[in-house]
């Protein structure tokens, strides 16, 4: 056997906005590490439907266990954490975000950046769509015995948000969530402070939508999946409502506008995209442990993802929703109810079909996550239905969020190349 090729370490190309984001993230991990010694309280909550602006009103330093897990995955630390959690009794089928978090605790509570990850003081369980979230926080609560407050967000079973659903969420915010957060933090709730944060959110949301929709252009100046996971970073996590995040989105929008002016395609870790040959819509999260390799399989073949559903898991903004300072609690409720993870099947299918059309995409690619029981179920049905409705080819690959054992590079590359060649062949047949 020939030896594995020696990998050359190339410098990664980063724009200013990316440096700013990096700074935001590492500052957040610093703050978390120092929180308890500085007398600050820590909250933990999940990305889809997170109430970041509300938590900011109580001066919490904010933790998001999913992003901790994905950051550990990106840094290739999750494999060991997952195996530790399995040795502790968690099955191979359990969500690997959960196992990475549990493994992190077992390994001595060190976060992805190597700094200590102190225990949370409150768990805000505002889960949308994914029932695993509930079990996850049960385990965390069992370990830390911390205060847990649950916000039940009704699923959009009928494909719409009714006034009763919204009122039900607002009622819980008023009667349960806010009093608990006040008690744990010792800070009195100030609705004007919330309004101020929501104004910031709205500005950032507007800029984000402009950035994501720039992919409707040919060539697209962004990658709506691999690039977008960076773009959604601040707004989906601990920074929405923070003026720093608003500044990030202003800067990002400006950068993208410059790319458009210059007629450039998306930025990749190796510089400018080599040229757009295939435009795709992607459903499902990316794989984090081999993120760069996975991305490379696309841009090497000239593929650009023009829209993705994953970039909507922390909020669907492109169909008009914005946080609204004039209706603070109501708009928080509508935000939770409207996340991608809270949409029903027909809504998800409609959204994908709409993207295929509006972004003039060649087809749909689904990256199905092995350990995600909530969202991988039914993806083949989505695929068939989208194929049927749009007549555009679709393909299916399988990997995992942060379990490196479930990423088979040769197999995925084979499927992707086949898919791209299939699109090309169809295009040639149509032109002939």
């Amino acid at each position, binding site marked *: 056997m020939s030896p594995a090729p020696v990998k050359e370490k190339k410098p990664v190309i980063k724009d200013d906005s990316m440096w700013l984001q990096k700074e935001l993230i590492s500052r957040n991990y610093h703050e978390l590490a120092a929180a308890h010694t500085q007398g600050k309280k820590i909250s933990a909550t999940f990305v889809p439907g997170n109430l970041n602006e509300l938590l900011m009103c109580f001066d919490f330093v904010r933790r998001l266990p999913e992003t901790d897990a994905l950051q550990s995955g990106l840094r290739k630390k999750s494999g060991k954490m997952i195996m530790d959690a399995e040795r502790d009794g968690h099955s191979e089928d359990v969500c690997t975000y959960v196992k990475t978090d549990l493994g992190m605790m077992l390994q001595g509570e060190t976060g992805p950046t190597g700094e200590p990850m102190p225990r949370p003081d409150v768990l805000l369980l505002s889960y949308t769509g994914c029932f695993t979230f509930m079990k996850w926080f049960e385990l965390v609560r069992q370990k830390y015995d911390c205060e847990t407050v649950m916000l039940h967000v009704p699923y959009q079973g009928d494909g719409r948000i009714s006034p009763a659903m919204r009122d039900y969420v607002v009622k819980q915010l008023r009667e349960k969530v806010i009093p608990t957060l006040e008690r744990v933090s010792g800070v009195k709730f100030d609705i004007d402070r919330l309004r101020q944060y929501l104004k910031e959110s709205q500005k950032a949301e507007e800029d984000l939508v402009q950035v994501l929709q720039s992919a409707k252009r040919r060539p697209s100046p962004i990658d709506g999946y691999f690039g977008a996971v960076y773009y959604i970073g601040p707004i989906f996590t601990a920074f929405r409502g923070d003026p720093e995040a608003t500044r990030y989105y202003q800067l990002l929008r400006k950068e993208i506008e410059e790319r458009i002016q210059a007629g450039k395609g998306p930025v990749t870790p190796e510089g400018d995209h080599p040229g757009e040959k295939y435009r795709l819509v992607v459903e499902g999260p990316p794989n984090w442990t081999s993120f760069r390799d996975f991305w490379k399989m696309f841009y090497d073949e000239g593929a650009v993802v023009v829209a993705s559903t994953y970039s909507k898991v922390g909020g669907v903004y492109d169909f008009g929703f914005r946080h609204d300072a004039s209706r603070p609690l109501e708009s928080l409720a509508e935000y939770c109810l409207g996340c991608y993870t809270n949409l029903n099947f027909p809504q998800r299918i409609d959204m994908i079909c709409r993207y295929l059309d509006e972004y003039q995409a060649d087809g749909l690619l689904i990256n199905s996550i092995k350990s995600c029981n909530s969202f991988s179920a039914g993806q083949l049905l989505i695929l068939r239905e989208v194929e049927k409705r749009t007549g555009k080819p679709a393909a299916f690959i399988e990997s995992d969020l942060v379990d490196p054992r479930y990423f088979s590079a040769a197999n995925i590359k084979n499927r992707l190349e086949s898919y791209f060649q299939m699109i*090309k*062949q169809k295009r040639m047949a149509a032109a002939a």
Partner: protein
Amino acid sequence: MKTFIGIDLGSTTTKAVVMDERQRVLGHGITNSRSNYDTAAAIAKQEALISSRFFLFRKRLEEEGALQSGLPPFLAQLERDFRLEQYLEQLADLEQVCARNVATAKFGDAAAGVSSALCRLFQLLKSEAAALFAPGAKRKSDFFRDVAGAQYLALGEPVAKDAGVRYDQLLNVFDRSIIEVENRVYGESTSRHLLAALERTYQALPETLAHREKISSPIRSVLDTPLDETYVIGTGYGRARLPFSKEHVRSEILCHGLGAHVMYPGTATVLDIGGQDTKAIQVDPHGIVESFQMNDRCAAGCGRYLGYIADEMNMGLHELGPLAMKATKTVRINSTCTVFAGAELRDRLSLGEKREDIMAGLHRAIILRAMSILARSGGIRNEFTFTGGVAKNEAAVKALTDLVRENYGEMTLNINPDSIYTGALGAATFAWRAVEEEGKSAEHREKEKVAA
């Protein structure tokens, strides 16, 4: 003349197909992939070119009308003699390499004894060679490693005993030498071997001597016609290792889809079960892939599974199917995981189930897994074409036929005896299309379209 070549680098074997300007298949070639894809590709291609020469001989001799009904036996003899010539050259090569390796093997005092035993052994190998390629002789494999290896093992033991050297030292020399020899490409020797083989054939079939000139001159003229490699397309598991540019590489899914369409133009669904992949492909009436599904990184239920089971049962891979056909019932096997199936196999044996009934169950288990992948790809549509190495296994075919009827009703099931070459055929067709239909404008045309 122009030729269009498709090469399919599989995980187990590498296949090549040569096509002419009229899209007529001239020849096939196959070799073991030997974890050296460059050599495997070169050898498969060379084999396919040789088989093309034989095809052209037949055509030319038919035109000449030299041998009439004597033509098929004459060509069969010529091919056997050609194989013998090839084998003898490789054997001579192996002898040299072995001799060199004895010198560096650190056998100490035993070295001289091993050397003389090797001399004796190669004398025997050479004298037995002709029998291997005699009419009706059965070989388990046509790959030099297998043929020479089996002979070396069988003849080596008594030779070692007589010479008073250790048998394992002889084996050691073989193991150290075979890889070098097997990775050598004897491209230059083809014509020489053919001409030498022709002489042998005249001797073997003296009645043909009367037509010597009528036979030899068309053969020479075919040999003098260069077979230009106008365009080569590579595909298969090892395609990234081919010394070709991206332009010359196609995914095996596209190649299998197109190959199946070329073999059976009515094909709508293709199932390919190879060494480590199971693929379900839907194609449109032009052979263009519409959708596909394949197994994930786990090769459960693929050809390798059968290989493993054969090892577990101490049987040859090709004996599994016939054994399963003797079954009177089908033992239920739950696992297509290779490791678990081994355990399940021993479990069933210990419960007293018959080997053939277990084998029938194992074949059904593989096909059940394929059925699930087929369902994921959109189901089976008429006509249904089954390809890949496993399509040669009659028990797998039987299980598939039954399950298709149970789940989808009556269907036309196509299985080509050359189905192992489906991917290479698709690749050769792509090569033909690249030149004859698209010229170099294929890429160009696409660029224009995207820009528009």
